[in-house]
């Protein structure tokens, strides 16, 4: 009864002061447009989300989606090479882009009187970007450096690559957005042009604008720059591969340039938006949000077995992974660390969370949900995300209710349902120097 009452007052509260108002419509060419007006600050976020990520790639041409995030700053029919960024800096703005398994996102944050500049730049990118040999070659070098910095030269940098390639045998989530440099080198210019023509089309894009705008005026400007861009007209390839159920535990060792060993566990979980995904998300708040969370308090503070530990759900458009990791403190061996991690998981599976602890994580989740809309760039991205993934941009206001309907029992249930040995990949990260070790600490296969 109390819980129900609580949920009720919460949604009232949210409606009162947190409602994100927006307008959305489609252009004839299929471009989806979302406009959120907020005149409190004279800035505007102009963003486009393309529903293409690494999962759309040909297994022989991985890294394409992310490569475009670079290539599409090279200029267009009307924007000379190297000028894209300059227009933005000279206007007093900032810009960037990022790519995931499922989508690619571009944004400019500009003074609001430069809205039209942002629309021009983004429409040029969509309409007729320059896909040329010189740009491809330049950006290949940049991506090489990026891979070196982010994956190769960083301790545990290969973690995601190593986990996902073992967890997925069929589904394209088995490779990371960064992909393979060899594939990028082998690809012909025609292949890049073809990818551009397939995915960079209005019907695969969501233009989300938030900030100091006049909605009617903005609609006109959007039409001015985007209405005459033709649709692609082709079907957009979407993978329908279903990853077969994992039947037994996968275990392996990865040697890396690191000092401290680490353990990573990855469990298969359902796609984002499902009821279980919300319960799993709350489970990770319980385990690792804040200094009083279970894993931090027990592994880092009290037992001092780990210097860092956490759990986070990788809920994706298709079924994703639940990652749990811990990095060992000096002198702690990795088997011992793993059993301490598993102890925490067993505890969630066996004991119902107390009312107080449950209330704490609800409060944390609520705080995080509300805070995610504190900037215009954040609002524009969230609106686009909710539209692209769920076809319901209004979840920006209501998704919290889905979190709040999760019960203590739900959390215990999903822990038992998904955090099972046969459903996981376990990786030990060990220092390169341990590679030639004798068989004594050989990892026991547990199946």
């Amino acid at each position, binding site marked *: 009864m109390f819980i129900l009452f609580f949920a009720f007052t919460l949604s009232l*509260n*949210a409606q*009162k*002061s947190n409602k994100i108002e927006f307008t959305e419509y489609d252009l004839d060419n299929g471009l989806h447009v979302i406009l959120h007006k*907020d005149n*409190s*600050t*004279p*800035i505007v976020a102009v963003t486009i989300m393309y529903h293409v990520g690494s999962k759309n790639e040909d297994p022989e041409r991985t890294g394409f989606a992310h490569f475009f995030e670079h290539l599409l700053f090279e200029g267009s029919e*009307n924007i000379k090479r190297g000028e894209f960024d300059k*227009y933005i*800096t*000279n*206007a*007093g703005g*900032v810009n960037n882009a990022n790519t995931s398994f499922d989508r690619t996102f571009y944004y400019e944050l*500009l*003074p*609001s*009187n*430069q*809205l*039209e500049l942002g*629309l*021009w730049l983004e*429409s040029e990118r969509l309409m007729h970007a320059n896909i040329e040999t010189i740009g491809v070659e330049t950006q290949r070098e940049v991506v090489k450096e990026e891979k070196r910095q982010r994956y190769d*030269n960083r301790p545990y940098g290969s973690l995601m690559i190593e986990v996902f390639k073992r967890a997925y045998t069929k589904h394209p989530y088995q490779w990371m957005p960064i992909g393979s440099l060899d594939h990028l080198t082998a690809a012909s210019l025609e292949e890049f042009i073809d990818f551009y023509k397939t995915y960079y089309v209005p019907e695969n894009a969501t233009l989300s604008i938030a900030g100091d705008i006049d909605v009617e005026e903005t609609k*006109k400007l959007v*039409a*001015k*720059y985007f*209405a*005459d861009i033709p649709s692609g007209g082709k079907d957009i390839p979407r993978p329908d591969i279903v990853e077969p159920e994992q039947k037994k535990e996968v275990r392996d060792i990865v040697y890396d340039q690191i000092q401290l060993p680490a353990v990573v566990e990855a469990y298969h979980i359902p796609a984002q938006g499902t009821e279980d995904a919300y319960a799993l998300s709350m489970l990770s708040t319980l385990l690792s949000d*804040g*200094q*009083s*969370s279970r894993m931090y308090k027990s592994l880092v503070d009290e037992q*001092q077995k780990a210097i860092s530990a956490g759990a986070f759900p990788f809920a994706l458009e298709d079924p994703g992974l639940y990652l749990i990791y811990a990095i060992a*403190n*000096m*002198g702690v*061996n990795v088997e011992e660390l793993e059993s301490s991690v598993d102890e925490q998981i067993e505890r969630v599976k066996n004991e119902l969370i107390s009312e107080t602890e449950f209330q*704490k994580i609800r*409060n*944390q*989740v609520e*705080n*995080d949900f*509300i*805070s995610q*809309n*504190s*900037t*215009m760039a954040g609002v524009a991205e969230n609106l686009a995300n909710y539209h692209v993934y769920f076809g319901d941009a209004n979840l920006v206001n209501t998704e919290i209710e889905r979190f709040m309907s999760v019960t203590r029992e739900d959390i215990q249930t999903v822990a038992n349902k998904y955090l099972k040995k046969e459903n996981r990949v376990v990786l030990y990260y060990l*220092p390169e*120097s*341990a590679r030639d*070790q*004798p068989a004594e*600490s050989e990892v026991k296969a547990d199946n």
Partner: protein
Amino acid sequence: MNHNMNKIYIIITLFLISLGTSAQVDRSKAPEPGPAPKIQIGEYQSFQLKNGLKVFVVENHKMPRVAFSLILDNEPIIEGDKAGYVSFAGQLLRNGTTNRTKAQLDEEIDFIGASLSTSSGSIYASSLTKHKEKLLELMTDVLFNPAFPEDELEKIRKQTVSGLAASKDDPNAIARNVRNVLVYGKEHPYGELTTEETVENVKLEDVRAYYNKYFKPNVAYLAVVGDINLKEARKLVEKHFSKWKKGEIKQPVYEVPQAPESTFVALVDRPASVQSVIEVAYPLELRPGNPDVIKTRVLNQILGGGFSSRLMQNLREDKAFTYGARSSLSSDDLVGNFVASASVRNEVTDSAVYEFIQELEKIRNSVVEERELTAAKASIIGSFARSLEQPSTIANFAINTARYNLPEDYYANYLKNVSATTLEDVKAMADKYILPDHANIIVVGKGSEVADGLKKFGAVKYYDIYGNEYEPSAAKELPAGLTAEKVIDNYISALGGEEKLSSVKAIKMDMSAEMMGNAIDMKVIKKVPEKLLIEVSMGGNVMSKQLLNDDEAVVMQMGNKVPVNEEAKEQLLLASYPFPALQYEKLGVKIELTGVEKIDGKDAYAIEVTYPSGSKLIEYYDAGSGLKVQETKTQKTPQGEMSLSTTYSDYKEVDGIKFPYLVVQPMGGGMKLNVKTQNIEINPEVGEDTFK
């Protein structure tokens, strides 16, 4: 009907026309910006409590969140030989109250999904609106009832000391310290340095005394920002802050530091450097609210404010001397400053200083280009506008307006004043504030390679890492006839003499250290010839073991064998001798005397040691005692070159031979390990099995 049709027809035609115009969009050039937006600085309201607390309320109901930000407007104080205690007081507020331990605070803060942080001049707390009562309870518990637990003080002291130790190897930190001393002087609070010694002197009484004296409502500003109205805010603030007792605080007054009479070079000689850190710096009288502040922001944006600034374009893009060159020109209530800086390769150090001075001269002597001015303004306006997205910016504006007696419309007119800045204004600001003839040119670098080239910019004076000047002549000239061999001979005599040292055929040492709260034990056993065991354990578990048995070298880490390369083997071989310096000749180690340097304020002879494998390090021998005080090795890391120093001190005699009882060793990631000798046994019985 007809009429209606007509109407529809007209609408359709209009629609087509508008479509038609949109089809004719000129894509060939970037659209012109609309009229500059009127930037509305959000409104604030204010009131004052009887105890003097000034409260500013910025209502913003976009999100159901509220933040309370308390700022204490105390002038910095001179901390003297306890420098560091003021900062400790701030950190300790969050680590336990008389009502709650730190763990309880963590729990209660997380329970409401809030955040709470403290410093010596501020407390910040934020949460969802509905938790504001609880949030204020926690915030004021921290403010009114700090427990200052002894163990938490020790924890902070330890962290600070290891941070300071690491910063001795960091040329940027050295440059910053020396710059502060030179620009402000040691009698000014901005020129005061926190060192390991001053940190050791800090007592809980100092921390408490600071808190008791300076945490008073009459010097405090409280910003309440977010989903709250004035009435509620007033009620809450009165409830929680009214009992706060005011107190008289006499704020100190300082003389304004002056720029040097003429430009000179302050060289911090760092023989291990492969890059020089260059800073051109001087103090400025430029207080917040001075109309020059906005114009100098435009000036600095052009000179060194971003990627397209002159310094960056010249030193990075054109000359490729550096990854980045920039400048800042800051206003401050006590004293402002100008700093231009870059890190450059040794061999271009003087060329880089030359370009810095050239750029300063140039911006003084000729008017900047219109296009530079336009781009600088756009960049400032854009970043100002983006900053307004955070409602806390408005609260800061309100507090600054009160604190520095700014005109009420100072921020409202800010962008107007940016836009109004003319080419002539920029020139006038450069004339007034860019002082290439009155600058401290601080260079932290390898003196033997860079000093001569720097003389053309003014007198070159030598400074140690704490900003103390020392006599360059003493530093540069080696005593006549001194050779590397003599330095080593002196060292051997200082330890106890060759005869005595040679009589040592075996040695056993027990040492201990502490890392992240864990005790580490080290056992070292050496036996002539070429036998060595180094065992490191933690909590009884052996973490690493290094063995040399004649020609066989084995290194184990956490029970795993690690491959041993030639360089590592060479190190083990040297280390297997009780006194490696005695063996230099025999083992083919080359030594060369390279100069005299200050190590911890004392002269030390620097000897470059080259091992047969080609690897090098520099050993420092105290000019007075003859004892070895430091070893420095330069390593390549992904972040650039970096040098690591091991220091030796606290020499004590055992059977007539001196041993360093404290060895400070660098660990990765800026951490230092203090290795303390517990026991030394000379010529003990050592079984051969020890080394297997």
